[in-house]
């Protein structure tokens, strides 16, 4: 069995619980264990960096220090958490001043960090630690007619080179093919969904979402899979608003990639949180989904 420390992040407790539960359900099938980090706190995300950089690094460093005690790779499912935790790790190694000050601040909470934790994204784990053969042997539902747009978003592959190409990654395509479905060409697959600017600069973000949906639909996708809660929120929950405001007519189901894996593995819909998806899945996916 493969074991990982798991950093859920705030979204998994709020609008993207389906991502967390489906990831756990899929991990169980693949004989991997995601052990939630005890007493974790918010990663601070980009906003905290802007307000106070050192505090932002310390938000992450506390989590990293807790993970270091356990000694396993720290896996995040949210691309933003993944990026922010990795960045703290990188700055910690690169800048002596940051290293010293982070540890001075951590000492106030009785903690210490040595920089040894490896931060990973859950896509990396499911696409690279688990072999395509292992995935294939667990597939129980034939998805060969399903055309899927693999949407990575930005922060899972950038800014630093990690497990895949920074502009034209292939992990998700490989995974989709292993599941038996068809990955359609998706040129905008690593472009940004607008992130949290959907709240503050709605018009701009809706324009970006529209481009992404348009690109997926015009390439013949039946659905889009994402690897990030923010991408999912913007493409799924805001799809109606895009239709209303920009006079479009999209009806593209948006799934977390772990939900698609779960569907292929024949896991019940409830365990995958499919009832939480806002754009209805039935039209495209009804024949594949296992009802309780």
């Amino acid at each position, binding site marked *: 069995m493969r074991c990982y420390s798991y950093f859920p992040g705030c979204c998994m407790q709020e609008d993207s619980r389906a991502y967390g539960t489906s990831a756990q359900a899929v991990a169980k099938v693949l004989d991997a264990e995601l052990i939630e980090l005890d007493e974790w706190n918010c990663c601070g995300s980009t906003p905290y960096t802007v307000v106070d950089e050192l505090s932002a690094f310390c938000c992450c460093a506390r989590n990293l220090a807790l993970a270091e005690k356990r000694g396993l790779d720290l896996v995040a499912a949210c691309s933003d958490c993944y990026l922010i935790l990795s960045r703290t790790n990188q700055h910690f190694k690169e800048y002596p001043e940051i290293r010293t000050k982070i540890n001075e601040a951590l000492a*106030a909470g009785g903690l210490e960090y040595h920089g040894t934790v490896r931060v990973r994204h859950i896509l990396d784990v499911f696409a690279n630690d688990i072999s395509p053969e292992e995935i294939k042997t667990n597939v129980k539902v034939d998805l060969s007619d399903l055309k899927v747009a693999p949407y990575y978003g930005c922060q899972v592959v950038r*800014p630093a080179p990690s497990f895949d190409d920074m502009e034209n990654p292939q992990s998700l395509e490989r995974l989709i093919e292993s599941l038996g479905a068809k990955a359609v060409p998706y040129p905008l697959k690593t472009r940004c969904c607008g992130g949290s600017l959907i709240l503050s600069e709605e018009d701009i973000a809706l324009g970006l979402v529209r481009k992404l949906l348009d690109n997926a639909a015009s390439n013949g996708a039946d659905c889009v899979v994402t690897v990030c809660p923010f991408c999912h929120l913007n493409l799924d929950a805001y799809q109606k608003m895009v239709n209303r405001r920009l006079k479009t007519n999209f009806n593209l189901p948006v799934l977390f990639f772990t939900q698609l894996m779960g569907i292929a593995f024949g896991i019940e819909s409830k365990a995958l949180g499919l009832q939480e998806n806002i754009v209805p899945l039935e039209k495209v996916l009804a024949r594949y989904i296992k009802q309780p």
Partner: protein
Amino acid sequence: MATKAHGTNDFIQEISALPGGEKINLCIQCGTCSASCPNANRMDHTPRELIAMARAGMREEVLSSNSMWLCLSCYLCTVRCPRGIVPTYIMHALEHLAMRHHVSHPRTRTPVLYRVFSDTVYKAGYIPRFGCMIRFYLRMNPFRALRAIPVAIDLFTHGRMPLKSKELNLKTKRQFQAILDKAELLELHPGGKNFKPEVKP
């Protein structure tokens, strides 16, 4: 470095004092960042212009522009920059300086959003979506919230907006805040004379 690293331009020094900011002097003004940016056409000044202006010491113009607040942190500019600059970090540094010097930005709501987010993180150690959205709309224009109501209803009816959120236990919260309080006192110091990465770019 080809250009002055610590010249007489105070503004450049302030930017260089923040992580990633020190590379601003490597820019060759090729414009790859601006060409890659999804929001460049909505910015007062494109990323390339902003860097040129900063290096010319145009502090007020740079800090009062909306440019950095439209940065999505998608890092496309970063992976394409031929000089290894991280323009995204420069944008973060400019946002930080604008906040530190209390520059107001009437044409963008992002600074308020960021402030609400980070205040919430400090207080709760966690971001409850519902509470955060409410606070943001209250601090902006409550009428704007009306436009978000259909989305909020969809989220709520699909079980995606819990009214009661997870809470850190008291001991964890105290530890978390003690660390952040200490961090705030320490602060990466402005001026940045000692602020150098170990590995030179």
